[in-house]
């Protein structure tokens, strides 16, 4: 029986050219896949915030004009080598580590890694202790410091729990790329490549096999799913 909901899901999947196909209803996420990003910072403008704005719209992050406590799932970090003067602008979001410290430290298991490598917060059992925020080397998580409104149906978020980039898990499950990737391709220079690192036929897997890529704080051994070129 196909209900209205399934129809909506199916129509969404057909509209966008999908890098991967939507998972069948009723099928769990599988460890056969490992979703990842490859970001070429040489294509990132210093002033460009297309990915950041797309994320805010997609996730319903309205903000309260309080920069110290407002949530940011992705941010542009401007880095400069003091020795050479070389500068880059790097989009930094949850790096979806294979060995995420936030998952290790979470007392209740709310901070979790899905089978396909996406790191999420199960806000149903998050108690708001913020230990994951202490543990994350990338400062990828935010704490909801006040009542939230204007939530998107696909991204529940509320006061007193921790949140962060979900790699747009709701879009991936429909066979669509994350909102930041789509927006960067449409409105900026297409610096972001999304795909399944485990699939040898995927563009991202072929590119990381062919070209030199780096990961932020690779020395920590967390094996992030987000890779960079140009830093």
């Amino acid at each position, binding site marked *: 029986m196909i209900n209205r909901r399934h129809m909506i899901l199916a129509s969404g999947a057909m509209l966008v050219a999908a890098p991967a196909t939507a998972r069948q209803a009723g099928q*769990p996420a599988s460890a056969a896949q490992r979703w990842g990003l490859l970001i070429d910072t040489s294509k990132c403008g210093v002033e460009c915030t297309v990915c950041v704005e797309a994320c805010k719209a997609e996730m319903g992050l309205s903000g309260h004009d309080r920069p110290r406590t407002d949530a940011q799932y992705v941010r542009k970090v401007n880095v400069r080598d003091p020795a050479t003067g070389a500068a880059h602008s790097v989009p930094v979001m949850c790096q979806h580590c294979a060995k995420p410290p936030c998952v290790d430290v979470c007392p209740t298991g709310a901070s979790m890694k899905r089978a396909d490598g996406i790191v999420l917060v199960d806000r*149903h059992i998050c108690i708001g202790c913020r230990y994951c925020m202490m543990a994350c080397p990338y400062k990828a998580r935010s704490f909801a410091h006040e009542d939230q409104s204007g939530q998107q149906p696909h991204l*529940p978020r509320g006061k007193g729990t921790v949140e962060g980039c979900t790699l747009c898990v709701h879009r991936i499950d429909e066979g669509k790329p994350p909102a930041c990737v789509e927006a960067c391709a449409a409105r900026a220079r297409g610096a972001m490549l999304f795909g399944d690192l485990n699939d040898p036929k995927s563009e991202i897997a072929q590119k990381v096999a062919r070209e030199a890529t780096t990961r932020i704080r690779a020395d920590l051994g967390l094996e992030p799913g987000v890779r960079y070129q140009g830093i």
Partner: protein
Amino acid sequence: MGALAVLITLLALPAFAADLPQWPKAKGEACIAANDVMRREHPDMLKHQRDDTLRLGIRGAKASLKACVECHAATSADGHAVPVDAPGQFCQSCHSYVAVKPDCFECHATTPKATVREASR
């Protein structure tokens, strides 16, 4: 024992006195299960589904809070969706009648997608 029964009856009197809950009509033709099943079992259905969807990534389950909201959120005269947890609306009418506060809408959207709502309270 008898005194206890009288006490319980007295305590329950306000419930008898209150008007039965009323809520706007749903958009769809039929719910996923009969009314008596839904009334009794919707918390378990949603709890089971939330763990399956979030932790395992199983999409398209029969029971879904998002689908509840899509079907049951009323539309106001000016075309805006009315939050399901507003007084007299689908979720709130029954929940205030039975004096149970659902935790869902601390986080979950109370209206279907594609409606623009005011920024902050």
